[in-house]
């Protein structure tokens, strides 16, 4: 074990190793995003461009759910409901005010973060099953609210719902993303920025604290980590990201339908996150693609979209049995094997 312990001054004076900021994965991801932003709009049809935009937006929602589960062990079953809440706030501001789009996105993110925290607050001390059930019931309550109230469409009053005598006002887009290809790029940049924020969080003081909490809340507390505050921050951060995604979704399709934000959708999204890989941001990209590109493919092929629920169920079984880190984990293993053999 130790010989003589070094003094504080001696250690502080010792030269420290310098590390390059970021890893190769970040540069590869940045390059891939830039390539996608340039290539996809010119290569695919309007139908598929719309699907790709939705996939990018849903990958942010998946990253939020994955962050909660993969880094902190929180099972969030209300992420699609939060997406709807972000969309609702964005539609209310976007169809009823002249607030610039960037501010509108931030407002949607902030409101969603507050709701995510308030609903999770009662169960934060417990985590686990209690928190999962509370998020599920919140998703159920949000579904009922969306169906009862509807989404704003340029009407007057607090709710902003137009009656049948008025034409609904479509959600406006940012000036930088007025056309579909431009909006795809805009959404991609916003999603990439939030991915970067999530990535940086994983390498920060709070990222290490979350990893410790995930392993054992008792060990974390014994290490001086405020477990409740960290869980609160996690809900706020991922709620913010999901709210931003809601604003992007509202701007992408110009209006939202209540049926798209059911509790079942939240549960299915969580399944897709596990299949894609909850422990990495690549997994979130895969989950976003599975959640939005597969339904479009089924639509193109004339297949019943409900079959996807069965497909995702089978995928979940395979994940549990053979690939606990999801498709992203499998890809990483493959890449490592390829690297070793090369």
């Amino acid at each position, binding site marked *: *074990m130790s010989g003589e*312990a070094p003094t504080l001054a001696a250690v502080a004076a010792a030269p420290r190793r310098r590390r390059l900021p970021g890893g190769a994965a970040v540069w590869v991801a940045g390059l891939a995003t830039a390539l996608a932003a340039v290539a996809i709009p010119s290569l695919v049809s309007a139908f598929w461009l719309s699907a790709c935009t939705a996939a990018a937006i849903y990958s942010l929602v998946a990253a939020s759910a994955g962050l909660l589960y993969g880094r902190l062990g929180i099972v969030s079953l209300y992420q699609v409901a939060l997406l709807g809440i972000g969309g609702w706030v964005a539609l209310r501001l976007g169809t009823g005010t002249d607030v610039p789009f960037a501010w509108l996105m931030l407002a949607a993110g902030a409101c969603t973060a507050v709701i995510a925290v308030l609903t999770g607050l009662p169960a934060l001390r417990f985590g686990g099953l209690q928190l999962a059930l509370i998020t599920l019931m919140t998703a159920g309550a949000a579904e009922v609210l969306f169906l009862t109230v509807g989404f704003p469409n340029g009407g007057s009053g607090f709710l902003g719902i137009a009656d049948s005598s008025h034409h609904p006002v479509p959600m406006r887009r940012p000036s930088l993303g007025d056309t579909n290809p431009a909006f795809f790029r805009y959404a991609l940049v916003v999603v990439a920025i939030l991915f970067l924020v999530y990535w940086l969080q994983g390498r920060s003081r709070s990222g290490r604290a979350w990893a*410790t909490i995930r*392993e054992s809340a008792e*060990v974390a507390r014994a290490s001086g980590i405020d477990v409740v505050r960290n869980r609160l921050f996690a809900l706020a951060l991922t709620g913010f990201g999901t709210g931003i995604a809601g604003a992007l979704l509202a701007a992408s399709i110009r209006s939202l339908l209540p049926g798209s934000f059911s509790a079942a959708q939240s549960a299915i999204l969580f399944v897709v996150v596990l299949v894609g890989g909850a422990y990495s941001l690549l997994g979130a990209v895969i989950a976003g693609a599975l959640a939005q590109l597969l339904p479009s493919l089924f639509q193109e092929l004339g297949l019943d979209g409900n079959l996807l629920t069965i497909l995702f169920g089978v995928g979940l079984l395979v994940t549990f049995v053979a690939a606990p880190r999801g498709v992203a984990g499998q890809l990483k293993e493959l890449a490592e094997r390829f690297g070793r053999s090369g």
Partner: protein
Amino acid sequence: MIAVEGVSVRFGGVHALDDVSLRLGVGVTGLIGPNGAGKTTLLNVLSGFVRPLAGRVLADDGTDLLRMAPHRRARWGLRRSFQQERIVPRLSVRDHLRVTAEHMPDHDVAASVEIALERTGLAAVAERPAATIDQRQRRLLELGRAIVGRPRVILLDEPGAGLDPGETAELLELIKGLPAESGAAVVVIDHDMTLVRGCCTELAVLDFGRLLASGPLEQVFADPEVRAAYLGSSFEAGRAL
């Protein structure tokens, strides 16, 4: 350093701790007793994971530790290790120590981590993911988490579990040096009397939740009640079991 006063804990109808009073000063205090005597429960009370039915835990500065949340006790300087080490497989050894050091007030995080790495002898494996280190190194990492920063009270729950006699002897020397190096009060729970005798200056014996005896090591070892309840008649004072 801290005074435990009249602490009682009940789990249903079982008295896990019954009016236990104990003073823990600078030095190494052994806490021994048969399985189910309440040793770990007492550590859990001190670190805030079990709320006692009655009693106080007072620091020298008058702070009642029972009024503080567990993470605040850790930041105050009350630190502990666990019977079963719980590591984060993907985090490096250094990051395990860093995550604790980062949450402690008023100290140089990097320097504290380096010191803990040196003291535990883990500097050579500092950058390795914790999943790849062996059992002995895991026990040392568990200990490192408890000593990094500026601890005032260090609670070690079976630190020698799973170690062979040679490794235990090394650990013993490390624990023995902690009070002088850090100025902390150290409490060690262990069934290994070689470890207890080798590093402790004070001893407290629990039996069925009651404090049977406490005081200087040899005096407690010589106590007939302690020998009857825990050590056994074959135990010889001055010799390890």
